[in-house]
């Protein structure tokens, strides 16, 4: 691949363009789910990724990061996750079209048919266990489990990465302090997942693949799962290098790469740049604008959202308590992309900066 092209791609994988492009691709995927799930289109999409890998293979930096034993599952995950997104949206597209033509979804056609578990199911279970075992053994014989130097508390590797499935959380550490990124947000991911069945009051869409019947819920869940979880894992694995700096896929992991700019707190913006006075010494006063903003975000936005028809319908279906719970979790989730954008555009560090309580 020519050097110019590599540089262009390195830029494309910068934090801002990677995320903006990813979000754009995500919504495009939802909007055009009937088109891209056509087998031919999906095959071409997949081939493009394979070609990208093939062309990049000879690049030493790319090759190094992609073939690291612990990263191989994540390379596989790119294809696996695409395949299963395809599988569900393909079936959704077929079912949605059937239902538009007055036919039941495919799953309903045989809904009264019952089969015996022995032998039908037990046979399938047995077969998939064997196939999977073979795959696992081949994988294990082919690729040795990594073992680095013995643990050494005095020698910190750069970068120190958490296990790959936690890299989404580690990425959040860039934008939030550890007590939010490591404790509060993960807890809300768990509670957020748990309340889904109790808040989703849509009677349609149970037991068959569909997108049309549950557009809003599916978009919200997948935004969290695909964009804020899976995409951040890819980013943390392949694009984060020494000092947690950003590196393009072909870039050498230079330990001395210039650190990022100094970030500025909201209080500084407000008191110094806007009012032209010094920052008040009492943190409770100086942080008032931030405190106000956060409260407004969680208290006023739910009301404002009610002017949007989708949210209004949500409210009338769910009632006050469920609506508040869902919207609260929704706002917590959206705080991550919001903070990311603020960081990139305004170099904003903290909205509230009271020692040990930074948001």
């Amino acid at each position: 691949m020519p050097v110019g092209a590599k540089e262009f791609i390195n830029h494309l994988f910068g934090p801002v363009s990677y995320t903006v492009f990813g979000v754009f691709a995500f919504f495009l995927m939802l909007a055009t789910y009937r088109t891209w799930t056509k087998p031919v289109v999906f095959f071409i999409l997949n081939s493009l990724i394979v070609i990208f890998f093939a062309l990049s293979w000879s690049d030493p930096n790319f090759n190094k990061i992609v073939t690291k034993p612990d990263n191989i599952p994540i390379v596989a995950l790119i294809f696996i996750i695409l395949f299963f997104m395809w599988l569900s949206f393909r079936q959704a597209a077929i079912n949605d079209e059937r239902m538009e033509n007055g036919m039941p979804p495919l799953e309903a056609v045989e809904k009264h048919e019952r089969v015996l578990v022995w032998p039908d199911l037990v046979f399938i279970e047995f077969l998939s266990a064997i196939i999977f075992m073979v795959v696992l053994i081949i994988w294990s014989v082919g690729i040795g489990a990594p073992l680095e130097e013995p643990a050494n508390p005095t020698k910190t590797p750069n970068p120190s990465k958490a296990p790959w499935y936690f890299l989404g959380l580690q990425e959040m550490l860039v934008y939030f302090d550890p007590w939010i990124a490591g404790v509060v947000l993960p807890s809300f991911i768990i509670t957020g997942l748990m309340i889904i069945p109790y808040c989703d009051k849509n009677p349609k869409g149970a037991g068959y693949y569909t997108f049309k019947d549950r557009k809003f819920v599916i978009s919200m869940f997948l935004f969290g799962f695909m964009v804020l979880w899976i995409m951040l894992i890819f980013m943390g694995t392949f694009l984060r290098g020494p000092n947690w700096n950003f590196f393009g896929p072909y870039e050498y992991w230079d330990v001395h790469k210039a650190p990022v700019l100094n970030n500025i707190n909201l209080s500084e913006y407000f008191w110094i740049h806007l009012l032209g006075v010094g920052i008040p010494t009492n943190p409770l006063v100086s942080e008032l604008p931030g405190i106000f903003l956060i409260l407004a975000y969680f208290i006023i936005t739910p009301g404002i959202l009610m002017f949007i028809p989708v949210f209004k319908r949500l409210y009338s279906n769910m009632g006050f308590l469920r609506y508040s719970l869902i919207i609260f979790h929704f706002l917590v989730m959206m705080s991550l992309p919001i903070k990311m954008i603020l960081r990139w555009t305004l170099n904003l560090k903290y909205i509230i900066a009271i020692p040990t309580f930074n948001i």
Partner: protein
Amino acid sequence: MASKKGDIGRIFDYISNTQAWKSIFRHGSPDTTRNRSLVMLMNVVLHLHPVRMRKSGLRIKYTWCMGGLTFFLFLVETITGLLLMFYYRPTPEYAYIDIQYLRSDVPLGVMREIHRWGAHAMVITVWLHMLRVFMTGAYKPPREFNWGVGVILLVLTLLLSFSGYLLPFDQLAMWAVTVGTNMARATPLLGHEGPGAAFIKVGGVNVIHAATDARALLLGGRIVGASALLRFYVLHCIGFPLAVAFLIAVHFWRVRKDGGISGPL
């Protein structure tokens, strides 16, 4: 009828009529609906399954077999993990050497590989299982509770993986776990760098400091050292697996009691 069978058929008939066979399998060979039902009902392992099920629940395209694969991987991890335990001592002096030994000198030395790649695969299959349950709306009533059980299983799977990550006690392990557990330091109220911890005082003395906070509880000290290794080992080999095994039993039981694999109403 017996005359039509070949030698093997006759031998099988003979075996399945012995007292020993009949004491184990209390039904004839599974060639009638009645006997096939009995297979499922009389076997403690298989009876987690129902006897009959929706045809659509059988379709790979519907379930992707992902829950089943997750369970399968859990079994693989249990078995390979047990074999690894024969060779592994959870102390800083031995842990690393034992892993090296496992790799070079133990017959059938792929156990560690299978265990590690299986753990990676299990994390992926749990996520995909959750994705398919979500995309089919299978969490809707009456399956809300089972979704909740699933969420806990998801967290436990990640914890299992994470606690195992430390055990080789190499640089990768130590620092990944350091990064991971550093967050506990910032737990609100319970971590010594977390908000509010400074306010918890008894007689003017801070209760929460580096040696008493949530992270110290996790690691058994201030650093990732001998006691952290032991704690992670015990949790990894006994604590979490027991919890997962129990919850999987609940999970499967509820799949049945909620009416089997979901399908359109």
